[in-house]
């Protein structure tokens, strides 16, 4: 386990939090939280229940005020409507949608409040509803939509107006596998165009979608790094062999490049596989790094 990273406001970061403390009564939600998220990345925010994920998103969106510390959102300081209007979208985890309006009315109103003119607001609302497969429900009352449809509508609310920063709290919660996969595809299209922060407990899903990860525990940041670095995909290799194993080899051969090793992983992989094949090894599987889930539960994460 690494110590909490020291974070300074850095260029190229869409989000920077430095030393954020936040209490709710006696309960400490955030305890000196610091991390940065690179611009254009899709970042996973992971941690157990009560780790501070939702509080962090609330502070980033300006719903909650930190007790101390500093926040920078898109290089414009802490979130404020006057400076950030239309540049940030959020899916708040536990916010209920107004049930009497229709999806089209809601997205239109929210897009108008983001500063879009009526025509652009209507087009953006329509595009977002189509992207979450709710185009055919645009004029039905929200009260008549299923839980999954409402979830998709809240995701659409975060995408409306094409914001530069999208904060999503449990976006695929309650969705069936096909809808969840579609949503991941939708979010993947934002890579490079927008910075997306996703808080979720679904680690395999985050691993497949995200290129950056922030691990929280008890209101502190345990690690904030590239997904490849956390899972070891850029420095580690695991080769599974079928018996009989070559002399001196076991069923699994690990390769971990030390930081001072100048070789890239593809180069080292080629060398190792060449050696193994030369030794007559029968290779069953070659895997880069470990799963995020494994790393999350491992001591060094």
């Amino acid at each position: 386990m690494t110590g909490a990273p020291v974070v300074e406001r850095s260029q190229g970061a869409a989000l920077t939090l430095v030393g954020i403390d936040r209490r709710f009564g006696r309960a400490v939600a955030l305890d000196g939280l610091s991390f940065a998220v690179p611009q254009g990345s899709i970042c996973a925010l992971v941690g157990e229940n009560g780790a501070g994920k939702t509080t962090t998103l609330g502070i980033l969106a300006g719903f909650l005020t930190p007790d101390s510390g500093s926040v920078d959102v898109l290089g414009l300081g802490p979130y404020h409507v006057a400076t950030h209007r239309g540049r940030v979208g959020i899916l708040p985890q536990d916010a209920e949608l107004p049930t009497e309006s229709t999806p089209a009315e809601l997205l239109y109103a929210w897009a108008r409040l983001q500063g879009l003119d009526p025509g652009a607001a209507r087009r953006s609302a329509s595009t977002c509803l189509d992207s979450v497969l709710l185009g055919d429900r645009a004029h039905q009352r929200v009260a008549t939509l299923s839980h999954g449809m409402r979830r998709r509508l809240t995701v659409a609310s975060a995408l409306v107006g094409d914001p530069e920063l999208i904060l999503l709290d449990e976006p695929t919660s309650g969705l069936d596998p096909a809808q969840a996969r579609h949503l991941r595809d939708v979010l993947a299209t934002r890579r490079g165009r927008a910075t997306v922060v996703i808080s979720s407990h679904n680690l395999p899903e985050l691993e497949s979608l995200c290129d950056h990860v922030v691990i929280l525990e008890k209101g502190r940041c345990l690690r904030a790094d590239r997904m490849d670095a956390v899972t070891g995909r850029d420095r580690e290799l695991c080769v599974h062999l079928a018996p009989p194993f070559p002399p001196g080899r076991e069923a699994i051969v690990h390769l971990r490049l030390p930081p001072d090793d100048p070789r890239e992983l593809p180069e080292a992989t080629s060398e190792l596989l060449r050696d193994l094949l030369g030794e007559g090894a029968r290779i069953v599987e070659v895997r880069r790094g470990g799963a995020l889930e494994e790393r999350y539960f491992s001591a060094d994460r």
Partner: protein
Amino acid sequence: MSRGLVADIAVVATYEMQQALRKRLLIVLLLGYAAATGVAHWGFVQGLKELEGQAATAMGVARTERPGILIAEVLKSSELRRFLGDLVGDSSRLDALLDVPVLALWSGAVAMVLLPVFLMTGTSTTVSVEVETRSIRFLALRTERLPIVLGKFVGQLVMGVLAGLTGVIVTELVGLILMVQVPPLGLAIGSLEHMARAMVFALPYAGLGLCVSQWLARANVARVVAMIVLVAVTIANPVLDAYSDATLLGRLADLTRLFLPGTGWGDVWGDDPLALALTTARSVVVTLAWVALGYWRFDRRDL
């Protein structure tokens, strides 16, 4: 007020109305408003019928099933004039006010009782319910908190006007069905005019309700507190009025009444345009003061 602020208020007000117009609660409240107006008007018409019966007996003419034919005679009765004089706070105003059908005058008084209740019921939960369900976050991300509050307030006032118009329709129907010789146009114009006066009177109650809604994050608690406050204000007004004199306590009572809703009952019946304008201005200032007191809290709270 900047153009952006006005545009945001308009969007939030429309959003508020879309929500409210589809809720069963609004339909129930409007039906309740119509029923209460109808019952009050029925009672008033029964009173007129009794007085007309007495007048008919005195004149030696036949009684009628529906009142209206002898209304001019009835309006000369000291009993009715005293009642109507008490209603408008000053009997010297009565002759000027009676250039519209007497039912229109009565409808204004009924609206002045019902509109505060209707407006406080709506405004007391409009913000708190969104804070409780956190749906306020969808708005707060996109616009400042002031246009949220003002937009919701405007939306609720439109609902109040809708309730007032419901009362006008009921008044018209009562005039046509339960009375005779009531000029429909005169009754409509008269009840609309008095509905507008009632709105001026009720406006501070809407401000007080919105204040409660901004302080309390639980909608049901806000609704109950608002009703308790409504009763407390209704009791406090005559009590403070009784203390009104040149002593320090009396001046303090007067100062308190300045900011309490319900103090302008007599003032809104006046027919002097300048006095009415001043009464309206005072009503708006008191309303905004209550909204501002609530906003002081809302602007600082976590959402």
